[in-house]
């Protein structure tokens, strides 16, 4: 079904190449969005191994409307780059064989080159195109990051997590022991210490896969909710500890938790994490805190959402420190990001009194709004990290 559609597109594309810039063409131009009017410069650019980037014949500074036409038999990725430095202005991925899409972007004066990275083929760099004059660059290009660039950082992160896991295992062991001893106050204390240690690792959004579900899963999506027999891990134990459930009944969960954390250690020792995961992690630990901790969604009685948020900030800081060498030359807002992280840490620490964190719903409105504001701003500034450090073919 899909393949035949693609072939149909290809036919349409061939039929319409002749009338690109003339008006009234959009009706036959097929899927690509109609060219915007005004002083936009419209160019149809061929994307293929043999003709990468041809068709941009009248380069003028200003608003560009490129119709990227993949005439190849392979799906690929298209990068518009600075011909000198290789820095990337735009990345379109994927562009399926025989399809077209538009790329709208403002460009200043400079030397440009399209790069076509077709599946199973070496990247082809198109002929350099010069936009004459002295028009300023509206948005600076960014030097892309490759898988290889991220290997060092990924190894650093793996080393960090591996280094923390023995401590995590020890702390979950203490929790198990306290539950076995029937000492609820000790168990609650041990629960908090162990859980924060885990949260410090930055296991946001299923980063540790199924093991994260075993260790830190929520009852959401389980038919029985908090009473679902399949629910286990930190939050299951939290629910029991703070809802008067008997400690012997919680013991199997505590034992399963120690098993899972031990497994996590083995997993880190033997498998490599995807570099893409690391760049996403830099952003999403804070995103996770905003979504689950500040809302109380992951609070099952301990009221420790702010403590968890603080631990998540530690995790964010650790990941950012590892990524910093890659970000320094690429992310102009990095100083603002550092400031935002410090401010969030300070504002969080300020609501802690006598060593105790209030639950999020106990915060005064000004404190609450300040923290919402801090975390929101922090997430805005972290979002580009994931985009800039997404590994790309160059």
């Amino acid at each position, binding site marked *: 079904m899909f393949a035949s*559609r693609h072939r*149909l*597109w290809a036919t*349409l594309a061939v039929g319409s190449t002749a009338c690109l810039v003339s008006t009234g063409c959009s*009706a*036959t*131009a*097929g*899927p690509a*969005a109609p060219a*915007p009017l005004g002083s936009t410069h419209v160019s149809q650019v061929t994307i293929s191994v043999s003709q990468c980037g041809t068709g941009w014949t009248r380069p003028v500074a200003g*608003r560009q409307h490129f119709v990227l036409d993949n005439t190849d038999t392979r799906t690929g990725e298209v990068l*518009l780059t600075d011909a000198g430095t290789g820095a*990337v*202005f*735009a*990345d379109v991925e994927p562009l399926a064989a025989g399809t077209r899409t538009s*790329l*709208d*972007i*403002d460009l200043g004066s400079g030397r440009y080159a399209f790069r076509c990275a077709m599946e199973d083929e070496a990247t082809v760099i198109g002929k350099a195109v010069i936009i004459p004059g002295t028009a300023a660059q*509206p*948005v*600076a*290009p*960014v030097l*892309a990051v490759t898988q290889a660039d991220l290997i060092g950082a990924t190894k650093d992160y793996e080393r960090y997590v591996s280094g923390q896991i023995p401590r995590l295992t020890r702390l979950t062991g203490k929790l198990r022991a306290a539950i076995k001893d029937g000492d609820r106050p000790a168990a609650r204390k041990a629960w908090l210490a162990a859980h924060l240690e885990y949260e410090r690792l930055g296991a946001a959004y299923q980063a540790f896969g199924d093991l994260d579900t075993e260790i830190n899963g929520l009852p959401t999506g389980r038919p029985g909710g908090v009473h679902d027999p399949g629910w286990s891990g930190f939050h299951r134990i939290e629910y029991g500890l703070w809802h008067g459930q008997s400690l012997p009944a919680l013991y199997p969960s505590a034992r399963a938790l120690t098993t899972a954390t031990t497994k996590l250690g083995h997993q880190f020792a033997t498998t490599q994490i995807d570099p893409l995961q690391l760049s996403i992690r830099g952003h999403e630990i804070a995103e996770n805190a905003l979504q689950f901790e500040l809302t109380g969604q992951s609070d099952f009685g301990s009221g420790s959402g702010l403590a968890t948020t603080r631990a998540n900030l530690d995790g964010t800081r650790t990941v950012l420190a590892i990524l910093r060498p890659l970000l320094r030359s690429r*992310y102009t807002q990095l100083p603002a990001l550092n400031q*935002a992280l410090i401010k969030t840490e300070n504002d969080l620490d300020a609501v802690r009194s006598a060593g105790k964190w209030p639950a999020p719903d106990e915060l005064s*409105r*000004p404190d609450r*709004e*300040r923290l*919402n*504001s*801090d975390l*929101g*701003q922090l*997430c*805005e500034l972290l*979002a*580009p990290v994931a*985009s*800039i450090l*997404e590994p*790309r073919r160059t």
Partner: protein
Amino acid sequence: MNTDPVNADRVNAGPMNAARAGLGRRGLLRGAAAAVGGAALAGAGTSEVAAQTPTAPPAGAATTIPHPDRTIEFYGRSQAGILTPRQDQSAFVSCDVTAADRAGLADLMRTLSTRARFLTSGGTPPNLGIGGPPSDSGLLGPTVPAGGLTITVSVGASLFDHRFGLAPSKPRRLRRMDTFPNDNLDPARTDGDLLLQICADDKDTVLHALRDLTRHTRGGLQPRWRVDGFVGRPRPTGAPRNLLGFKDGTANPDVTDAAEMDRLVWVQPGSAEPAWTAGGTYQVVRLIRMLVEFWDRVTISEQERLIGRRRDSGAPLSGTQELDVPDYADDPLGAAIPLDAHIRLANPRTSTTDSARLLRRGYNYDAGIDVNGNLDMGLIFSCYQQDLDRQFAAVQKRLANESLTDYVSPIGGGYFFVLPGLQDANDWYGHRLLS
């Protein structure tokens, strides 16, 4: 622009919310598409159909003929969104400023100005390439239409507390909203440092603006409460109806009469107010829940005596047509229009109450259900006046204990001062206040 009632009926037959204002403007085609069963969502399916017949609208897709894009002037002595005839859709978003100091507040105001300038004029958002997520939410497509958008920024009394050193510049009448005898105010839906009033021809334009504004101001501004409003179409003619079923807004000062606006709405230079306020105005927002289930169980004659107008025609009970002017001099005992009818208390139409008239620009709101299963809907009463006490507060005192209070319940809102307008591309909200 407005369509005839026949078309309106056809639109009503569609699966989309018939209450949505502005539907009628899309006219026949929209109704026809809706009748086809326009539940189809755009997306892959749509483009595949388009592939077969690139020139024809995709079958099954909700085809709309949008009303023409229009731009409402952003610059001026005063902000837009006050004398501007009500757009169909709105959001009232009260925020608290979380910026740490005065410099942070000024940054926030500059950012709001920059975003509002772009959003109200439209254009193509920049392509940031791989440097970050897309610069725009995409709600309105790759090129953002102006969409009849206005963004009106006003400030509450709490902005003038100790945080920013603004106490000496506070407009004289500005204060936390008074609690009137029949109020049932929820602190979570009352007051705020800064109010964003966002109005546009379409709901997606409002939401696009709201997402853009909050995205760019997260570090300095946090939403405190929000309510979205809509205006019904005239049913069948005249002022649109509120959710009590009565025409609302029939008697309003004439916004085309500049002298009257200077007398009733705009703070004038050289007044007793701080100099920076000239061109601004006091805004009162009252979230007035209407107890519509109860109301619907009240007889028509009682409803009409409570309001003072006929429900069908909107005519005052002393007249025949909507625009007939109620004559209270001839009716001193309230035989035609009861003495405590809403319109009579609100505007007794005497020479002494003339200067108390205010400019109303309200919206209906619809916000789900209450714990008892009753509908939470009502009026976002929003009005503008030169002097909060001479106008709104005086009217409100006259309305104290009116019989209508059994059927309506003020639950929130706030007093705000609408900042003067922006003069040019270098100007920003609160420039004169903060400089």
